[in-house]
């Protein structure tokens, strides 16, 4: 297991795409200097139904006015397992971080998300958000979500939310009543579910490729 180290210099903008994490651990340790912007896209769309994926993102803002954005999505099927752990540490004031992670879990697959967010005592005016939304597509699928916020500064804006639900049955029936087969209806609903994560890519061609990949996974 190797750790990839990355240091983002003052004012630098960095975009990382982490995909195809399979049977190994993708571990990153990243530090951010003043005014730097880090955007991470994490995709877990492995075709093989028997893989275990681990992604560990350890990020520290060491310079003020740094921004960290983490967007992730995953579709887990068969016996797949995934563990995503984000550790975002605001060590200095005026930092911003935003995390949006969504998982759809089917069959006997299992997904785990641990989101650690630490705001150091002197990191005033931190603006940190963490959202994790999940949908279970089979009664045997499991999702564990664990937001962990440690906030030691008092003048900060921090929010987190985690929900795990199922496909909206009333929407499914509405679509069926219009002649749409349940599989197709589910595909449309999941495309909608992932829509806000996908649009953060800002590239329609890549978005469409990932949408096709999602559809393939769910067939």
């Amino acid at each position, binding site marked *: 297991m190797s750790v990839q180290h990355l240091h983002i210099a003052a004012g630098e903008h960095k975009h990382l795409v982490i995909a195809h994490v399979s049977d190994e651990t993708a571990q990153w340790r990243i530090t951010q200097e003043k005014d730097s912007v880090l955007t991470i896209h994490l995709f877990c769309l492995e075709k093989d139904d028997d893989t275990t994926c681990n992604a560990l993102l350890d990020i520290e803002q060491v310079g003020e006015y740094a921004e960290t954005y983490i967007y992730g999505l995953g579709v887990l099927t068969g016996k797949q397992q995934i563990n995503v752990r984000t550790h975002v540490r605001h060590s200095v004031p005026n930092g911003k971080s935003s995390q949006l992670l969504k998982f759809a879990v089917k069959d006997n697959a299992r997904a785990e998300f641990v989101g650690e967010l630490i705001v150091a005592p002197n990191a005033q005016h931190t603006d940190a958000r963490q959202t994790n939304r999940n949908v279970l597509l089979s009664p045997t699928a499991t999702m564990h979500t664990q937001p962990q916020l440690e906030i030691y500064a008092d003048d900060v804006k921090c929010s987190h939310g985690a929900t795990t639900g199922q496909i909206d049955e*009333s929407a499914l*029936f509405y679509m069926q009543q*219009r002649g*749409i087969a349940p599989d197709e209806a589910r595909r*449309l609903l999941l495309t909608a579910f992932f829509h806000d994560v996908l649009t953060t890519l800002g590239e329609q061609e890549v978005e469409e490729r990932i949408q096709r990949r999602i559809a393939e996974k769910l067939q």
Partner: protein
Amino acid sequence: MLDIKNLHASIAGKEILKGINLHINAGETHAIMGPNGAGKSTLSAVLAGNPAYTVTEGEVTFNGKDLLSMAPEVRAREGLFLSFQYPVEIPGVSMTNFMRAAVNAKREHQGMPALNAGEFLKLMRAKRSLVELDNKLTGRSVNEGFSGGEKKRNEIFQMAMLEPCLSILDETDSGLDIDALRIVAEGVNKLHTEENATIVITHYQRLLDYIVPDYVHILADGQIVRTGGKELALELEEKGYAGLMQ
């Protein structure tokens, strides 16, 4: 077209429909009226195949086929349309993608080729004008952020797109102001032909001033207790359910 015989249905073990008999021919408009809890919406849900309800007895034939053995999407493709009392909001699914999936599913069922993007948009434009549905609305997610009136107009727009042979309008008048009611009713009337039929479920006579029924049925406690012509709705308006059933 539709033949309902001794239909019994329940939800969560509670019997709601207690032996419905109804025969509908092509070209006819039937109104079903009745007090709250009579089973009006249950009847429409059962005909559409809502899995929340269980049919415990009876049979329904639709164009010579056994309706109750079909999956909900097959009933729709065979030409059964339900205008929902509470149309469902589907955030993130665009009206365009939704309608294209629906129209092409029906075409495939009928052995027709799928419409291409150009043909489809042309069809959308033509049908939209029927219920004066704003272009902006068809560009949005299904029913998301639509007003009550817009949702109902959107139902009739979908009905126009799918050209069903049997349309069930479940309290399409609820939540509509008088102008929206007129637009919706005119849309329904324009879609009416000698080949299709309509079931109008309503609490009030008002909608029937616009959509004039051939038959009016009064549903009470899960059974049709009276059937008459359009004058029955007027009598009902005058006497109330209690007065009519004495």
